[in-house]
């Protein structure tokens, strides 16, 4: 698990970057068994058409560029593409939008992804505290995190019991438990997600500075969850920094 994830990390660092694009971040997550959609990075239109066929329409397109980390601001996320014709048309549009937003944007490709069934949105995050090390954050997504800051933290590594308490102690918990006659969400899947993120960060703590899995869709009990979007900010391990004798600079954003 660690080796596979490290390969991705190393290649990003080797390019002189510390901000992973979504595609790279998800490869790291996948290496640790986190549920990510079956997505593919298309470098050409032909590849895009091929992948879309494999995945099955409708699909989503997300342009990957180290210089564009706020994809929706740059309008480089296009959803619900229903036909090959539409995909051809949008291929041009998505590239144009990227160029308009950042003329110097380096484009790694376009992620072709299945359209996901919406679920209850949660956010899982990681930050590094100077005294206590990496901390794991959990909360409901959207307005709950933006406006109400209804989130909770634990220091990594966490225990399963910590994970369960985190989920239950946010104010919005009834939304997950099933308020107003809704089916309860798959709490076990969230526990598993939190445990896996904790394990991942604990093993890669010398490399990871911050992380956002936002949003994560959580489905009804027994139906699992999926990481819809992800960001990872890397740091250069100290020994490496000395070895190279120069500090990497964040080129992006």
């Amino acid at each position: 698990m660690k080796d596979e994830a490290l390969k991705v990390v190393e290649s990003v660092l080797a390019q002189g970057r510390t901000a992973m694009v979504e595609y790279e971040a998800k490869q790291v997550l996948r290496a640790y068994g986190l549920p990510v959609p079956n997505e593919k990075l298309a470098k050409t239109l032909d590849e895009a058409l091929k992948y879309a066929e494999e995945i099955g329409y409708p699909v989503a397109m997300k342009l990957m560029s180290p210089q564009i980390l706020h994809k929706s601001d740059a309008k480089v996320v296009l959803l619900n593409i229903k036909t090959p014709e539409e995909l051809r048309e949008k291929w041009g549009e998505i590239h144009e939008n990227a160029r308009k937003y950042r003329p110097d944007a380096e484009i790694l490709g376009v992620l072709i992804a299945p359209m996901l069934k919406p679920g209850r949105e949660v956010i899982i995050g990681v930050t590094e505290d100077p005294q206590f090390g990496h901390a794991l954050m959990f909360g409901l997504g959207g307005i709950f995190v933006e406006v109400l800051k209804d989130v909770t933290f634990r220091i990594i590594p966490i225990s399963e019991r910590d994970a369960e308490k985190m989920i239950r102690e946010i104010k919005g918990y009834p939304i997950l438990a099933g308020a107003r006659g809704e089916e309860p969400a798959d709490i076990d899947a969230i526990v598993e997600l939190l445990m896996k993120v904790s394990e991942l960060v604990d093993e890669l703590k010398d490399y990871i500075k911050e992380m956002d899995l936002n949003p994560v869709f959580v489905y009804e009990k027994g139906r699992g969850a999926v990481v819809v979007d992800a960001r990872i900010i890397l740091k250069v391990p100290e020994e490496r920094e000395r070895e190279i004798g120069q500090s990497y600079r964040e080129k992006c954003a």
Partner: protein
Amino acid sequence: MGEKIVEELRPFFDPKAVALIGATNKRGKVGNVIFENFKRNRENGSFRGKLYPVNPKLDEIEGYRVYHSVEELPDDTDLAVIAIPAKFVPATMRDIAGKGIKAVIIITGGFGELGEEGKRMEREIYEIAKANGIRVIGPNCVGVYAPDTGVDTVFLPDEKMDRPKSGPIAFVSQSGAFAAAMLDWAAGEDIGIGKMVSYGNKIDVDDADLMDYFIHDDGINVVTFYIEGVKDGRKFIEAAKRITRVKPVVALKAGRTEYGAKAASSHTGSLAGQDVIYDAVFKQTGIIRADDFEHMFDLAKAFARLKGKLPKGDRIGIITDGGGAGVMASDAVARFGLKMAELSEESRRFLKEHFPPHAVVGNPTDVVGDTDAERYRLAIEAFVNDPNVDAVVVIVLFQVPLLEDEKIIDILADYQERSGKPIVAVAMGGRKTEHYAKMLEERGVPVYPTPERGVRALAGLVRYAEYLRKA
């Protein structure tokens, strides 16, 4: 590792012979106040070690021989207390190392907190200590107060600051001023403090070391911390996890300001203020967080008396002789995340059978204003035997006319001792009530002046018990 830390820190709390470097006969000086503390405690028998004042310019202080240098000190010296200007401290540390003394309290301020030169001296002191296996409390601190063994390096004179009696509470504070104020306050509140440590700039002995020490200290039931900042977070977490399995820890964390928002390149980073991180650490390690110092000592008092009978759940029963106070307590139960117990049918039947019709049976049960002690006893009897009740709050308005004060105190103390369920009392009132409250506390029942504070303290017990059950 536990045994090693006990051996290393023992001289701070129970020294055989204390060298007071910078002892003086000038009234009000730090070196004089500390000298007077030890002298007074030798006279009253609490300090049974020897006292060796050190000062190159004096031969004798109040009948004590004064040593002119560290080198001259007798070989049985096992604790050095330093109260001389900062610039002389590094050289003195080297003398102490040469003498083989392994425990040092540096009261002197003017080090790291005042800039580069001070930081350099601190590093030098630290290196001497490390190289010679010396443990250091301070610098820039008030040191140690341990009434059972008569150790008192608090440089605030006895006539200006009362010293609390001994008790099962340990109190650790980074800030010296806060520590001194708290000791004075605890004395006034009649709260017993078994050991107080104020470590100031903590170049060596820190919170984690003290937690490891207090695990093994049988005289201490609960450890309270006033924390400004933790230097080694991982060490703190590990030590906290070790001690909370054995005894409760209560922490008051100052500085609820946010720094996380600055320079955060991720969403999570912008939400991770220092305060939420401390919250996380406390939850994960089973430390009970206090909102303010009143809360801290409310919790400490409850833990000190009820550590052996933690509640098995969060269902609270309330008995009162005033309706309003019962409502306030019920509100507090909800506010602090506890549940109101549903009395069993059996309890209801029992109470209805014995109570006059105008008394209110339920939760809260209101024994009403014409109650006597026996009516309280029946209610307590029903509540502690009810399988649906985990802890009992008994509100006693001592002002009511027919209540026999001594008898109700006997009853509460008796049930506290006999039943497995914790009982917390609330007594609202003035001087007369305070007098009864003190009597109750002496008999092992923690008493609080308002329903909120009583229930809030009980909530701390419930949280700690939950942590232990799942740890």
